[in-house]
Structure formats: C-alpha cells, structure tokens
C-alpha cells in the first residue's frame, strides 16, 4: 500500500459532524456524501482537493458520532488515506471496515505543511515528505488482524472469506 498526494492539514479533535454534517445523513449515497465532505470544517475543501490527496490531522480524528458516512465521504471524495496523530475508536474501526486506509504518525503533523506532497508507504511503515530534506517518518504498525481486514477488502469480505 503506497499513497502519494498533496497534504490537507486539520487540527485536533476533528469530529464526524465536521467531516459530514447531520443534515446530509438523509442519504448514504457515497457521491452525495462526498460532495459535502469536510464542509463544516472548510467549506471550500471539495473545490480545492484533487484525487489522491491526503488528509493529515492531529489527535482524536473522527471523534463524536459513529456515522460511517464520515469515512465513506472521505473515501468517495478521492482522498487516498488519512494520517493522524490518533483516531477516535469508532472512526478507526469504520475506516478499516469500509477500506479507507488510515495511519497513525506522531511526527508527521508537525513536520509537514499544507500543500506539500508526501508518500505514505504502508508496507514499510514510513512516510516521506517529498522535496524536503527531512528523513523518513515512522508510522505505527497496524495489528495483523487489521492488515488482514484491509487485504481482504473490508470486514464483510473478510467474513465471507472466513465462511467459504
């Protein structure tokens, strides 16, 4: 798993209401949700980003409501992965369950600025900030069970595989 994209930075405690506001929860259509992704945190977010870009956030990303619409909106918006100092636990589960790649890095947030390009290497567990002289940053290893979920294509496919 390797991702390369432009960084969009957010602070600590980005809640799921900011990722996708409750007023849009009348639908679970990924394209509709994506159109309003991060709207209450940054109304122009969807105009600014391009496919493959990466969200970089501080502590406790995705706190609040359990709405799976949040990782669905981020994934459907074309964001390739999210790197945060830490994640709220329901968001963490949901992201793996639906196949949105997420990584924990204690160091990236302080080292990178908005708009810089980075490369996240999930296999090696490192992040490189392109066109900079900073060395590779380490990402927290993903537990083997979670890796299995991702490689099976999410929780439901994992279950189907186990049954078969």
């Amino acid at each position, binding site marked *: 798993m390797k991702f390369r994209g432009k960084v969009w930075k957010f602070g600590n405690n980005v809640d799921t209401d900011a990722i996708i506001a409750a007023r849009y929860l009348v639908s679970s259509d990924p394209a509709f949700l994506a159109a309003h992704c991060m709207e209450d945190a940054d109304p122009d977010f969807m105009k600014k980003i391009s496919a493959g870009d990466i969200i970089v956030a501080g502590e406790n990303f995705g706190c609040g409501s359990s*709405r799976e619409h949040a990782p669905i909106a981020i994934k459907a918006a074309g964001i390739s992965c999210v790197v945060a100092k830490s994640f709220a636990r329901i968001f963490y589960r*949901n992201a793996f369950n639906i196949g949105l790649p997420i990584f924990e890095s204690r160091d990236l947030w302080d080292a990178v600025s908005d708009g810089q390009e980075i490369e996240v290497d999930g296999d090696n567990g490192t992040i490189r900030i392109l066109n900079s002289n900073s060395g590779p940053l380490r990402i927290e290893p993903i537990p083997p069970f979670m890796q299995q979920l991702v490689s099976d294509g999410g929780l*439901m496919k994992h279950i189907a595989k186990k049954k078969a």
Partner: protein
Amino acid sequence: MGMTITEKILCRHTGLKELHPGMLINARVDIALGNDITAPIAIAEFRKAGGLKVFDRDKVVLIPDHFTPNKDIDSAQQCKFMREFAREQGLTHYYDVGEVGIEHALLPEQGIVLPGDLVIGADSHTCTYGALGAFATGVGSTDLAAVMMTGEVWFKVPETMKIVFSGKMKKWVSGKDLILYIIGSIGVDGALYKAMEFAGDTIGQLSMADRLTIANMVIEAGAKNGIFIPDDITKAYVAERAKRPYSFYNSDPDCQYADVININVSGIEPQVAFPHIPSNVRGISQVGDVKIDQVVIGSCTNGRIEDLRVAAGILKNKKAAPRVRLIIVPATQGIYKQALQEGLIEIFIDAHAAVSTPTCGACLGGHMGVLADGERAVSTTNRNFIGRMGHTGSEVYLTSPAVAAASAVLGRIAGPEEL
C-alpha cells in the same frame, strides 16, 4: 490475576477462561442496535454480502428515532427501507412512530438491555447501557451488518480507567454535572480506547437516571465503554423490566486498572460546556452574561422523567423569557405519558414551552429546533461541536436540566439558585 467487570463480561461472551487488555477477541453479542441513519447502510451491506436472515430476530433491534416523525422525503425513504427490513425479518424489537422513543432511553426502559449483556449499537451513545452493568459500545454500520450475519463482533479488550467519586453532591448537582466535570478534567480523548469504571461512595446517591446520563457521555471522553457495578438501585430498576435472565458482575479485588482518578464531588458546582467541544467546561459561577435564544431539554442524555421533574420544579408558575424558545422532548412515549399524568406537561405549556413527541430531532440539528446563524442554545444534550444543532455560526452550551430550565426563565445561562 483478577479481572475488571468489563473484562469479565467480555470474557463470558467468548470461549476463553480469562483475557487481558490488548487481546483481540471475537465475542457473542446479546443485543445489536441500529437507527434510521445507521441501519440503512448496515442492511445494504448485509444484503450485499448475501445475508438472508439475521442471526437472531430477538437480538437485532432497529429504532427509527433520528429523523422521525420523518422530516422530509429522503428521511421517509430511509425509514421505509429500514421498516420493510424489520418486517421481513420479523424483528421482535422494532418500534415505529407512536411507540418509539430515543433508542438509548427506550432500550433500558423496556428491559431490552440488561445487566451482564454485551451490546453493540451503530450509534456512538450505545455506551449508555453501561449504567446497568452491561458492556455496551458504539460501532459503525458495517460492524452492525457483520453482527446481523454472524452474531459476533471483534474487539480489542480495553484497559480500564477507574473513576472514584467520594463526598456528597451539592444541591442542583446531577449526573450530568459529574460527567461534564470529568470530560473537562481529562479532555475529549482522555479515555481514548479505554473502559471507564465508576466507583466510590457517591454512587449510592446516584439514581439510575443519573447513571444513564454519566455512561451516555463517556464517548465524549473517547472511551470505549462506561460501566457501573450493579447494586440495589440497579436490581430494583431491572427487576420490574426484565423478561429474560441477566447476570450481575463485579470487578475482582485484584484486578488491574490503567489509571485511578479520585474525585471529591462535594466541591463541584453545576457545569456548563461552552462551544465548540464538550471538554470546554466551566462552573456555573464562571459563566458570565451569556444571552440565549433557545433551550432544549431532552435527548438520550437528559430526557428521562427525573430530568423533566427537575425542569418542571423550576418552571412551575414561571414563563420562558420572551426571547427564548423553550423546547422540551420527553425521550420515550412512556416518559411522555408519565409526565402528562404527573402534570408536568401542563407546567411546560404554561411556561410557553413547545413539547415534542420523542425524537432525536434538535439534538443533531436534524429538525424540531434547528439553530440559525449567530443563535445560541442551552441544551441538555451531549455534543456542542460546530454546527451540531444547526448553522455553523450557531453555538451550543451543554448543561443539566436544572440549569437549562433556569436559563430559559432568565434568558441567559444561569443556575436555579438565581431564581
């Protein structure tokens, strides 16, 4: 080595003899919950994976409470989709408008969740049922879909943080104030991934309503679950509700806690969480002059009969300030009826309150009290994120029902002592 109550309940739902924090386990689920926002995604996933019948029609509970009575065509479509699934599957616990209440008030009230249960819900406030001595935690829609298929869910066994309350609570201080105080002390990720176990001699003074309020908001500290050891109050509460067997668990004397936090409650005054994060808490004496436009008393946090009684005691023979819109939402039909019988509804109407049928509505900015730009609300709900109750330029202040009622009368955030 001994186990905490959380570890024990998880253990009894696996084939294991003992377990410890950090282990990944597969556990059997007693109750799996979804609502009109989260269940449609779960049902679609269930079907996509070839699901035909849910694992147990007595154990999958679907509650249309968020955008109901339906606020628009899209929400009506979502509810219809869920309703048809509930009927097709013959679910025992599906309650529609007229019978339904806010899920986390309804399930304990109806004895659907019981002590010792392992409960998952595709709603973050599923943690509420820890008040009964159950392990209950919020998950996402795909997790719910997986449980509907298999009856099982995976967990990482959490470490436990023990909160020990001592001392006597001041007048007008409630469970809401205690949990706001804790969130203010440890922060919105202060208990991230952990179980919060509540103990200490103050617990005996806390009604089941107070305990439900406290457990409800542990997610606002990032916790996986919150839990109370069952006592006589728990026993009395469930004895009249349970229709199936249940078990009481306790933590072993030699169990391990990751942290122990001691809190003397006698110095705590009513608390107010300022915008835009539940940890931005101040004591009522530190609030200053904050004018308000709306007051909401209700939700899964504070819409129980005890909450309405406190509010009515303050609002009796008084009126909401002319510029304040007061909205009161009994959390279930049972609570609504009891409030009617006790004369509380009449007090509310005389105080110029709009009394609503049970719904999540205003709590998540859905309907029934959405805020405009620049408006401020005092609310007994559990979240005050930017835009939570409406426009991103609006503000939400979280309080107990007592402070909310007094604020409605005075038109600014104020404690009942000022009346």
